């Protein structure tokens, strides 16, 4: 774990705890049953999605010697906490001026696009970058996708809780009706939107960090490019259409691109992730010079940019049949 990034990560999480109380404060205005239903839905959403993600081979494996027991929990928890509270806290600080600016400029149509997508995608992507550099077991592009998905999931669950509370308060008939309507809306229309969008940004950031023999420009380009895709989809989703057809077309186009891209990332990385044996789960410590020499991987012929040799991955010994 890189100390500079891990210290940043945990200090930021500590500093964001007031955001937790802000989230809880909304419950004051909602009746007890509705608060309970809201929390149950949030926990279910969280547990089901984390469970499903953890069943994929893209989920980073923290087991093995050399890594602390429970490191996987710290990674998953910090990812969710960053999304839910640090990301939320950053948005609380920086969204106001964006909203003010769009109001001054009379940009009503894109007001929620800028106010929502701009600070939120930056705040979440920043978290993914810091987390990827805080845990040494994270070393593949798909680890960035899963880390991003967890950061986005934390943000999404917290946002859904807040939307649920707002729905309760704003419902014309009853708090519970509002909570149910809001969760129905959030799970039927654009489910996992934050989860997937931050997954895309995380995938690009991890490509930038972990692909070998790439130029600095390529790394910045791929990280910013994937984050821009997330921003563009979020921006489009939040457009304030005055006519219903515009809204429907946007929802359909964004959904096709977003879910299509998520399927592509899963599909294109699935086999490699399943067969990957990175240094994170080396079966034992290195005890001889022969094994040590293997850490210095040869640079393949035709490499684009020669770089200083750095330790590469050691494969788990294949079981003999």
């Amino acid at each position, binding site marked *: 774990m890189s100390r500079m990034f891990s210290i940043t990560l945990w200090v930021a999480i500590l500093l964001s705890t007031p955001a937790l109380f802000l989230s809880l404060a909304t419950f004051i205005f909602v009746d007890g049953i509705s608060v309970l239903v809201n929390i149950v839905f949030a926990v279910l959403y969280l547990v089901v999605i984390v469970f499903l993600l953890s069943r994929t081979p893209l989920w980073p494996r923290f087991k093995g010697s050399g890594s602390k027991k429970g490191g996987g929990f710290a990674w998953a928890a910090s990812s969710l906490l960053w999304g839910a509270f640090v990301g939320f806290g*950053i948005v609380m600080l*920086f969204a106001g001026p*964006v909203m003010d600016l769009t109001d*001054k400029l009379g940009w009503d149509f894109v007001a929620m696009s800028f106010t929502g997508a701009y600070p939120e995608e930056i705040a979440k992507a920043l978290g993914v970058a810091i987390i990827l550099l805080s845990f040494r077991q994270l070393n593949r592009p798909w680890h960035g996708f899963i880390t991003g998905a967890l950061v986005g999931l934390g943000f999404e669950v917290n946002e859904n809780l807040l939307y649920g509370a707002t729905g309760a308060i704003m419902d014309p*008939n009853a708090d519970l009706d509002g909570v149910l309507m809001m969760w129905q809306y959030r799970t039927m229309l654009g489910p996992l939107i934050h989860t997937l969008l931050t997954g895309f940004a995380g995938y690009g950031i991890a490509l930038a960090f972990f692909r070998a023999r790439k130029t600095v420009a390529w790394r910045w380009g791929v990280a910013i490019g994937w984050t821009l895709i997330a921003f563009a989809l979020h921006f489009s989703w939040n457009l304030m259409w005055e006519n219903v057809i515009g809204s429907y077309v946007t929802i359909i186009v964004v959904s096709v691109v977003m879910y299509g891209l998520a399927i592509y990332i899963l599909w294109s990385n699935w086999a490699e992730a399943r067969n990957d044996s990175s240094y994170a789960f080396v079966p034992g410590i290195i005890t001889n010079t022969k094994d040590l020499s293997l850490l210095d991987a040869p640079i393949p012929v035709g490499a684009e940019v020669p770089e200083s040799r750095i330790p590469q*991955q050691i*494969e788990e010994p294949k079981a003999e049949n």
Partner: protein
Amino acid sequence: MSVIEGKYQLKPQGRGGLWWSIVGVAVVLLLLPTLINLVVPDKANDYKQLEIDLLGVDWSVPITTEESAAVLCEETSDEITQKYWDCNGDTTVVTMIVEGVKDPSNTLRRMVGSSLITSVDDSLEAVSSEDGRAHALYVPGQQEGSLWTLPIVALSVQGSGDYEDLTAIAIINGTSLDYYSTHIWSSMAADRGLPYQQDFPLMLEEEPWQDTPGGDRPFELPNDFFDQYPDLFGPGSVIPNLEGESL
């Protein structure tokens, strides 16, 4: 053990520089709108015709005078479901359109509570228009500790045709309560095809502060207040007992 392909690398080198690069880019991007916002001048005002509407819904209730002139207010906050208006500098009007109202009294109480963040007595009931399509609720000024809240009027009108399931609501709170309440109520009647001139169904208090000492509004202090209570503004000062005294 064997060496794997060199497709991937471990963590990038130069952590200090990388930390500053990542955090620096994020901070610059986050601060950029704040800096631009500082140099973009404020709008002179955002006065427009007071109107009850909702994004994506064609039906709206414009508020007019009897002569069909637009009633103007400054739109101070345009949230997705509610709009806040500053009218005449002394009155807040909140407008919204909601769907599926079952009990107009309950809805008006709930909307007053949510839009003005105040508690409303559940026993308060709205009065209905003759055709049963419009409702009006009066929430009297209340004393909460040493503070008094101004009375609130909440008005609603049900849509017709394609908008039968929608209800337009306006909540009025401020010293020009009478003017805006009556104009909105009449505009709601005009929206239903009824004459503009309508009897307002609520009895608004002429002087909501009649029970307060002296009958003045509590926040209107007499000119000699500071002279009367010089100790109030010194170190360790205490609030004087004003019971029975005229402010």
